[in-house]
Structures are given as C-alpha cells and as structure tokens.
C-alpha cells in the first residue's frame, strides 16, 4: 500500500480535472457530485490501507518515504515530489479523506440546485488534493505547494458566491492575510535551508533529513528566528492572533466549505506544521512560549467574541478560532500529541456542528423562501424551537456541543482536558504554565457558555420564525443527515482512543501511536525542562475542576437563555460598553483598518501617483521608446535582397576571422 | 619503355586517318544540293541567330538533372566492377542497396511523368 500512496492525492486531482473541464457539459448533479465524492472516498480507502499497513509495522519502523518522481534538482538544491508516511501524516490523511468524504456527500444535498454546482465540486476536490499534498509532502517545498494550494482553494470557495460583494471582499481578505503568513513560512524555510547548508553543508529541505540533522541545531538563536517565521505562517493559515480576522468573514462561503476548510482541515495546517517540525520548534524555548501565549490568548479572545454573536455560523467561526488556540496552546507547552489529538476530535465535532448549522440554515432558507420573506436565515434570533422540526440535526448537534463543551465521556473532553493538564504540568515555561492553564480554563468556560447559548437559542424555546412559514420547516434529506450522524457518532466515541492513562480503562493508544514522531522533540525538550512532580490526586482534581467549569458555563447559558429570558437584555443594559465591544469583536477590524489598511492605502496612493506615474512610467516608457527606435533601425537592414544578406554574412565571417587571426 | 605506348599511337593515327579519309571520300562522291538551312553552322533545332537570352523549356532541365543522377550511377558502377571480385558478396549487397535506392527514384520519376516529353 505504501508504494501506492501517490494515489491518495491523485484521485481528487482526477475528480477536479473531470468536473473542472467537463462539469459544465455533464450538467447532471448526481454525476458531478458522485464523481467528486467517489474520488475522495477512493482516497479514503487507500488511506485506510496505508494506515492498516502502518499499524502492522513495529513502532520504530513506521516511517516511509515514497519518491513519486524527481522534481527539481539543481546544484545543491534537491526537491523531489515525494510523500512521507508516518503516524502523524497517517492521522492527517485519515481525517482529511474521512471527514472530506462525508462533507462531499453532504454537499450533494446542500448545494442542490446551485448555479455552478460543478465548480463547487471541482474546487472541493482540488482543495482535498492540495491538503493531502500538504500533509503528505516529505519536504518543505511539496508542503508549501499544498500550503499555497489550500489557500487558493479557500479563496475560490469563500468567493463562491462572487456576485455578492461581501463574499468577494471576504475572499480577498482571507487571501491577503494568508499571504502575509506564507511570506513568513518561506522566510523560515530559507533560513533553515541556508543555516544547515552554510554551516554543515547539509543542503536539504527534506523533513527526514532535517530530523536526522536536527541535533546540530542550537537552542534559540537562529532557530528562534526560523521557527517564529514558520509560526507567522501558521498564524495566517490557522487564524491565530493577530491574523485571525479573515476566518469569521470566510463564513461567506457555502457551509460545507466552512465545515471542511475552515473547521476540520485547512485551518489546522498550522498545527500540523508545528507537529511536523516539532524537533525544530522545541529547540527554541522562546518560540515555544510565543506559540503557547498566542494560542492561549486566541482561545480566550475568540471565545469572548463568540458569546455575543447572533449569526449561527459566526459563533461557530469564533469557536473554531478559539479551539485552534487550544491546539496551539498544546503545541506551545510541548504537548504535541495532545494538540494533534484535539485537532482530530475537533475535526469530528466541529465538522458536525458546521454541517448541523448548514442543515438548519438549509431548512430556514427553504421555509423563508416559501413565504417570500427576506429574513436572515442565519440569524439565531429568527430561530428557536427547531428541535421538534429537525430531530436528527438537533440530536447530532447536541452531542457535538456536549463534546466541545468538555463533558466527560465525549471526545472533546479527553482531548481538551489533556491539553489543559499538560499546560499545567509540562515543565517548559515555569510559572507561566499556571497562567496558561488558567486562561485555558476560562476559555473553556466561555466555550461551554456560548455553545449552549447557541443550542438553546436555535433548538429550544419557542419558535421565533415568522409563523406564516412554520409549516415549511422540516428535517433535511438523508444525504445531509447521514454525514451528520456519522460525525455525531465520531464526536462521541472518537475520544476513546486517547483516554488519559490516569483513568486506566484503556491505554492511551493515540499518544503511543504518535510517540515515534514526537520522541525526538521530547528528548530535546529535556535540555531546558524544569523538573517537577505531580501527583495523581492533583490530576484527578484538575480534571474534576475542568468538568465543573464546563458545567458552570452550561448553567449560565441555561439561566440566561432558557430559565430567564430577560437576563441577556438586563446584562446588555447594565454593561452597554462591554457588550458593544464584544459584539463588535473588540473593534479588531477597525483597529486593523486604522493601523495597517489605511496607511498602506495612503502609501500605495503616494507611490502610484508620485513615484509610479512620474518616475517608473517615465523610465519604462523611455526605455521602450529607445528599443522601438532600435527595432525600426535594425528592421531597415532587412532589405529583402539576397545579395545584401550574402554580403552581410560575408562581412560577418571576414570580421570574425580577421579579429582572430590578427589579434 | 615507351614501346608499351606504341599501340596507342597506332590507334591515334588510324583514327585521324580514318576521319580525314571519310570526310574526303564523302565530299568527292556525294551529291551536293546546298540550301540555306544546310549551310547554317548548326542544324540541331536551335536558331543560330537572334537573342541568346532565350528561355528553354523546363523539360530540358528535368531531363538534364535526371541524366546526371543516373549517369553518376553508371560512373559509380565502373570502379565497383573493377574490384567486384575482391569485394565479394559484400560488394553485391552494397551495390544492390545503392541501385534499389536509385530505382525507387526512377519509378517515382517515371510515374510522375517526368520522362514524357509532352
């Protein structure tokens, strides 16, 4: 199976080519959607095969590099189109192809009747291919191709409804912010390549080779610079402070896109990248601290904003940003396995939540359309009491909400608790660890609060939709609910493969699985770790505390949105400034406009009107005129007479020979 | 030593005498009915007087070209014939290839009608 790993990205590529070139002619939605879904499902099957084979090998042999074809060989520089299979990439391909297949299936129902149906599936397949390149690439350049590819697809899909100005703007915003991050990625790549090459004559961008040579890297210093650059790339792609504002806007895209790209896969690329290069990141304590702090801050910052949004998808978007913050927190405190574990469980429950919200929006839209109403189909204030109309959507949504809130027994609990525990207990940041843990706990409480607020506002209480169209509300078709059920199921059981050792019921399969990948990083980390010892009692205690925190959050939500409906209004009127600030996302967009966008525009205008028009155009046009004149001159030599040509040749030959003979 | 060339001298002398004798003989016993055409220096069909920058039919060129091509074949055959025995089978094959190639050309020319005057 390893030899056939190239099939995994190939299938979606085929799907993209078929739908991209012939989709317009095929027209039949079943065929287009079927091809798209089938292709990614085939990748999923191959991925399963790869995983099975990997499981069958002893732990230390679980690395395999498959060179598909030689790509660029130039002097010292060597980059092959090669794929790396190890436990980490195996997890990622399973998530991408598994969740991807379900979302493709879902899209057949959700996108039904949309103009450009084929375009959607073509882009979605292209996205999957890029994402698979990203996670499978065995060197940084292949990864970078995937990295750029997913950015492009994200741009295309956010702007899917390009006739809407807001969609176009959101797409542009996402693209530009990602570009800022990509710039960092490239600088990091060059720094690392240059450092290894010039200091140790190891000219490589291959992960396996870098890993083998990583003992040569110093602690801090150049590694800090390189890793911070890489991390800048990660903040762009994974929507962390300060480059997170594009993700909420990206909700302009169709909901399956939000589920696949902006929740389950693409935005986790930054986390994956840090995991892939854990042995480099860990060598810089400073970077680790930055990662942890940025992660924690993002987690709480986005969570607070999430509490005041009314658009169902926006709440989920901020929730995603916040959960990604948790993952970065995990990476930053050296809990790489826990971070990846949360990445996986998050993919399950967040995809389920997004798809569930899509199902709701679909139903709302349908109903409102019937009544020719122009109410906002995504505004939770128009919803309420939907559980009796859409039981399956409700159930799966509820299960996933419980999972994200961190109630024991559901997947989110295991992963989030693992992160919080390691944030507390991991020995890298000394006193800061407690602070990080505290921030994480508060963010977890906010999470429980806003997620249940969402559930209560949407599914419980009285139905606030225009009564005229109430009868038109009904459950979505099977093609939509089946993916929901599968993901809901995974949101419950997905966590059991990574149960904490402490609970003792199951061994922590997941961490053992990833051990070979992160072993080296943990080894390096010992260099500056503060030795500490924590008792089981403390771990139990903290676990209990995080459960309590979650319950508190849920209770507040229940009190405010179920028991006493007047409370939210009272709260807003008591703290109007706070509410306004949170509602307006702490005015971050305005701040960015003031700090970056407007000065850039001003500077751009200056360059354009002053420098560009006068100086650059002057030079360019001047040079152009000179060459045009020369061109006309040489053209004059071309008389068309054969004897002139022969004369020219003879003169040329004579001059050449004379120069050589008489010099 | 020069004796070896004696037969050649004989040949030259006999040829000269024979040519001269035939011319004399024909002028002595032949009939004479001179006309303008007969008295002209050449009588091969070309006008002897007039502009020399005359256009010749392209057919002449084709024939001339083909003549050269096949003439070279013949020329090539002479040295080959002299050492034919020493070359043996190898020589036969080589010449066969050469002639086949020319033969292809010959068939082509023939079918194209380049050998027909009209």
């Amino acid at each position: 199976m390893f030899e056939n790993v190239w099939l995994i990205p190939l299938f979606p590529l085929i799907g993209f080519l078929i739908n991209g070139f012939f989709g317009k002619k095929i027209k039949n939605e079943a065929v287009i959607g079927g091809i798209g879904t089938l292709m990614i499902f085939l990748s999923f099957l191959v991925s399963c095969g790869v995983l099975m084979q990997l499981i069958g090998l002893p732990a230390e042999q679980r690395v395999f590099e498959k060179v598909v074809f030689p790509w660029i060989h130039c002097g010292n520089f060597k980059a092959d189109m090669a794929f790396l299979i190890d436990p980490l990439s195996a997890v990622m391909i399973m998530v991408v192809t598994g969740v991807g297949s379900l979302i493709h299936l879902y899209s057949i129902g959700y996108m039904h009747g949309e103009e450009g149906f084929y375009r959607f599936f073509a882009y979605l397949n292209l996205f999957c291919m890029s994402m698979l390149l990203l996670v499978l690439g065995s060197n940084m350049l292949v990864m970078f191709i995937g990295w750029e590819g997913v950015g492009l697809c994200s741009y295309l899909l956010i702007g899917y409804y390009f006739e809407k100005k807001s969609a176009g703007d959101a797409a542009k915003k996402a693209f530009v912010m990602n570009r800022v991050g990509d710039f960092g990625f490239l600088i990091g790549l060059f720094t690392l390549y240059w450092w290894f090459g010039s200091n140790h004559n190891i000219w490589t961008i291959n992960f396996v080779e870098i890993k083998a040579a990583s003992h040569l890297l110093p602690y801090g210093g150049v590694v800090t610079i390189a890793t911070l650059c890489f991390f800048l790339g990660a903040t762009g792609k994974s929507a962390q402070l300060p480059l997170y504002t594009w993700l909420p806007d990206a909700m302009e895209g169709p909901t399956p896109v939000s589920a696949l790209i902006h929740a389950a896969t693409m935005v986790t690329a930054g986390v994956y990248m840090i995991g892939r290069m854990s042995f480099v990141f860990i060598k810089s304590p400073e970077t680790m601290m930055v990662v942890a702090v940025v992660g924690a801050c993002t987690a709480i910052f986005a969570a607070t904003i999430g509490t005041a949004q009314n658009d169902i998808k926006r709440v989920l978007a901020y929730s995603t940003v916040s959960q990604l913050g948790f993952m970065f927190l995990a990476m930053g405190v050296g809990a790489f396995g826990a971070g990846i574990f949360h990445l996986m469980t998050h993919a399950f429950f967040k995809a389920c939540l997004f798809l569930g919200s899509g199902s709701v929006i679909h139903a709302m839209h349908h109903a409102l359309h019937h009544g020719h109403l122009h109410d906002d189909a995504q505004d939770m204030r128009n919803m309420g009491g939907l559980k009796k109309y859409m039981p399956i959507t409700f159930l799966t949504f509820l299960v996933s909400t419980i999972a994200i809130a961190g109630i024991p027994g559901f997947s989110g609990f295991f992963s989030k608790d693992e992160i919080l525990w390691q944030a507390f207990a991991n020995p890298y940041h000394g006193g800061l660890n407690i602070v990080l843990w505290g921030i994480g706990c508060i963010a977890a409480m906010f999470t429980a609060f806003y997620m249940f607020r969402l559930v209560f506002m949407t599914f419980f209480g009285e139905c606030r939709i225009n009564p005229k169209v109430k009868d038109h509300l009904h459950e979505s078709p099977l093609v939509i609910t089946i993916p929901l059920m599968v993901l809901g199921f995974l949101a419950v059981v997905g966590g059991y493969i990574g149960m904490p050792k402490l609970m003792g019921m199951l061994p922590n399969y997941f961490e053992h699985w990833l051990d070979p990948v992160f072993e080296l990083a943990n080894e390096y980390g010992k260099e500056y770790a503060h030795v500490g010892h924590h008792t089981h009692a403390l771990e139990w205690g903290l676990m209990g505390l995080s459960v309590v925190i979650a319950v508190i959050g849920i209770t507040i939500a229940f009190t405010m949105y179920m028991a006493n409906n007047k409370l939210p209004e009272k709260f807003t009127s008591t703290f109007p400034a706070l509410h306004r600030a949170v509602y307006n996302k702490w005015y971050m967009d305005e701040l960015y406009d003031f700090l970056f966008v407007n000065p850039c525009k001003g500077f751009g205008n200056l360059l354009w009107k002053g420098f560009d028009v006068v100086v650059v155009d002057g030079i360019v046009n001047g040079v152009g005129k000179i060459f045009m004149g020369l061109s006309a001159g040489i053209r004059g030599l071309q008389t068309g007479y054969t004897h002139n040509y022969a004369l020219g040749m003879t003169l040329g030959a004579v001059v050449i020979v004379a120069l050589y003979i008489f010099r | 030593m020069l004796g070896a060339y004696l037969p050649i001298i004989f040949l030259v002398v006999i040829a000269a005498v024979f040519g001269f004798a035939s011319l004399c003989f024909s002028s002595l016993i032949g009939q004479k009915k001179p006309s303008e055409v007969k008295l002209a220096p050449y009588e091969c069909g070309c006008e002897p007087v007039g502009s020399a920058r005359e256009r010749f039919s392209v057919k002449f060129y084709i024939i001339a070209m083909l003549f050269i091509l096949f003439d070279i074949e013949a020329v090539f055959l002479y040295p080959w014939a002299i050492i034919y025995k020493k070359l043996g089978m190898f020589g036969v094959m080589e010449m066969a290839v050469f002639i086949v190639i020319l033969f292809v050309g010959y068939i082509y020319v023939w079918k194209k009608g380049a050998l027909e005057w009209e």
Partner: protein
Amino acid sequence: MDMLQFPANIAAAAGVNFAAIMPEVILSVIAMALLLVNVFINSEQKAYLGYLSLIGIVVTFFSVVSGWGAPQSGFNNSVLQDNFSLFFKGTFLVSAFLTILITDQYLKREECNWGEIYPLILFATVGMMLMASGTDLMTIFLGLEVLSVSLYVLAGFNRANLKSNEAGLKYFLLGAFSTGFLLYGMALIYGSTGTTRVAAIASYISQNGMVLSNPMLVAGMLLMAVGFSFKIAAAPFHMWTPDVYEGAPTPMTAFMSVGPKAAGFAAFLRVFIVALPAMKADWSELLWVLAVLTMTVGNITALKQTNIKRMLAYSSIAHAGYVLVGFTAGNAVGTAGVLFYMLSYAFMNIGAFAIIVLVGRKGEENNNVSDYAGFGFKHPVLGMCMSIFLFSLAGIPPAAGFIGKFYLFSGAIQAGYVWLAIIGVLNSAASVYYYLRVMVFMYMKDPTEEFDWLAVSPSLALCLLLSVAGVLIPGIVPGTLLDLAQKAILM
C-alpha cells in the same frame, strides 16, 4: 599491379554496424516507400501518407528509445549513436511528428495537397539524425546536405504562392553560400590535423600542441562556426530567417524553426566539444559575442513586427541566442540545458504555429497580430493553448520555457559568465513585450471582424494536446527530462 589489398572480412573491416544507424535506416526505408505509394494513389488519399509517416516516426522512435544507454559506433567511427544523439533524435522525431499533424489541414486549405511533403519531412529528419550521430566531419556534412536539400524544397513547397517560392529560392541560395563556409572550415581543419574524425582531431591536437597556433586551424574553427551559425540562425548570419520563415508554408516554418535548429546545435556541440576542446577559450569567446548579438537582434527586431510568423521568426532567432548562452557556458548544466531547451522549444513553437495554421486563411492571409483580436473569447480553449505557448516562449513559469531558460542561464552563471546571464535575462524580459502583445490582442481587443468557424481537425487537436502536455509537464516536473538530458551529455 594489385594496389588494393582487401582483408578477408570486408564488412567487419569497414565497420559496418547497422545498429548504429538503425533509426536512420528505418526512417529512410519508410520515406522511400511513401514516395512510391504517393505516385500510386489519388489526391483524396494523400492524408494516408500522413498517417503512414506518423506510424513510421513512432516505429523509429521506439528504435531510438530502445537504443538508450547502449552506445553503438559504426562505419569506422564515422557515426556514433550515443545518448547524446539519441536525445536529439528524439527531439527531431517529436518535431517531425508534431509538424505532420498540422500539415494536412494546411495543405488542403492552400490547395497544394501533394504527397511529396511527407517523404521530404522524413528525409529531412534522416538528415538531422545523421548530423546528430555523425562523428566524422564528412558524415555531419552529408547529413546537413540531406537536411538542407529537403528543406529548400519544403520552404518553396507552396509553389503557387510567390512568397513561398521566394522563400525556397532565398533559402537555397544563402544555404548553399553558407555551406561553402562550413565546408571550407572543415577542409582547413582537415588540412591542419590530417583527419576528419572528431575524436581523432581532438587527439591530434592534444598530441601536437603547436598546431593550436596554426592560423589554418583557427580559421577552420571560425569558418565552421560561421557555417553552423547560419544553420541555427545566429546573428549576424540570421538574415535569411525572417524572409524564409514568413514565406514558407506555415507548418514548414514550424518545422524549420525547431528541428534543423536542434540539428545544427547537435552538430555544433559535437564538433566543438568533442573535437576542439583544446580551443574552448577561443570558441567560447566567439560564442559569447554571437549569443549576445543573436539574443539582442532577435528580440529588438521582433518588437516591431506585425506579421505573427515574422515575429516568431525573430523570436526563434532570439531563442537560438538563449541556447547559445548555455553552449557558451559549456558545462554540464548549460549543455544539458541546451538539450532540454531544444526539446521543450519544439513543443511550444510548433504548438504556437499550430494555432497560426488554424487562424490563417488561404493564401497565407490573416497572419497579422491584429487578426488575433478577440480570439481568446471566441475560442477559449484554443486561446488558452496559445497563451500557454506564449507564456512558455516568454519564459514564464510554470511552462517548460522557464525551466529551460533557468538551466541555460544558471549554467552560464556557474561557468562565470554572469554578465552573459544578465544580458540573457534582460533580453528575456524584453521579449515578454511582444509575446504578451499577442495576448493583449487575444483577450483585450474586440474582434474587428467575425471569426469564421475554425475547423480543428483531429490531428491538429492532437498536436495541440501533445504540445500543451509537452510544455506543461516538463515545466512542472522538470526532473525526469533533465535527468535524461544530463545522461545524454556524457559524450
């Protein structure tokens, strides 16, 4: 009297080794067979000749591929079929194949549907192959003549068209003239070294170092350079190119700008690198000047052209200049770059000419750049193909043209010719102007008149498909092809 002594096994003594010339033999036999078939079929069936010649090319290609890695020398070392010549033979066959694909449609439109064109293309290809595998100046010269004579006819093939006649005649006169230089150069080399075998020339020079100061040898080298420069259309021996390329039937222009140019480079490389390595300092100096002149003259003159065929003719001159940059470098990267570039140039240039064939009208009309106004909208797929070819010609990634130029110029930099590389890059930047001008017309101008319905014959579509693949695949995945090129230059 018996002056001639023959050994018992004459064939062995003469070095007869048909494996060394197998592709040439196959292709010649097929060409002759086609010549015969041609006179026995009527004019409606001429297209079959095209199909037959395509089959012939494919068969020959297999013979070329199967010879890879197993060098065969024969005929007393006057031919050597090594990887170098095989790579070039592949290039020639590709260009002949693509050319034949676009020929049929053109011939029917111009009403000059004579079957001789196919055998002539094949004979020209045989000549090119001999040039590539010739290791004796005489073999190379014979190959060159086989090629040239076929090309003279091909250039003037559309005999009802005055411009085509003019092209054929001009090419013949100037070609014969340049052959004089080449032959004189060869004679001088023979005179000073006493041999025409390239390897023997090199060993003679290395054993008799003082011959290097012999003006006869230097002059011989220079005159050969002049002769080859004519074939590859390097300035100042390029002046025939625009007139001939413009007048010749469009598919033949495509063919001439690719195959024979590659063949010229093959022989040029072989003679100079194998026979005259001792004079490298001398000839790389000359090539430096030729490269700069060629690039600059080609690009600058192309700026003002309005006829697209003429523009591509100048562009083809400029491309010869880029390739000369790699040749001047003379190192592994640069030389491999030459091979890589000639192959990818075959795809992009013939691809572009395929579009020109399509847009053109009877009597070589509709060949102005302005005739392409609105083409990109009216025919999106064809417009995209043309854009890909133009991007590749301009050297913009991810097309093969970019990678090719990258290797040529980096070869020059590695060899220390930094200025040459800079001039090359500047030229390349200037060239973007006239390539993109076509695209500006294609996408940003409204059509002045209605486009007729363009009949894309299946063979032409195949040509476009192959060309696009040939431009994009090596552009995105250059590794494999470059490996081949690097193996090929181990002469």
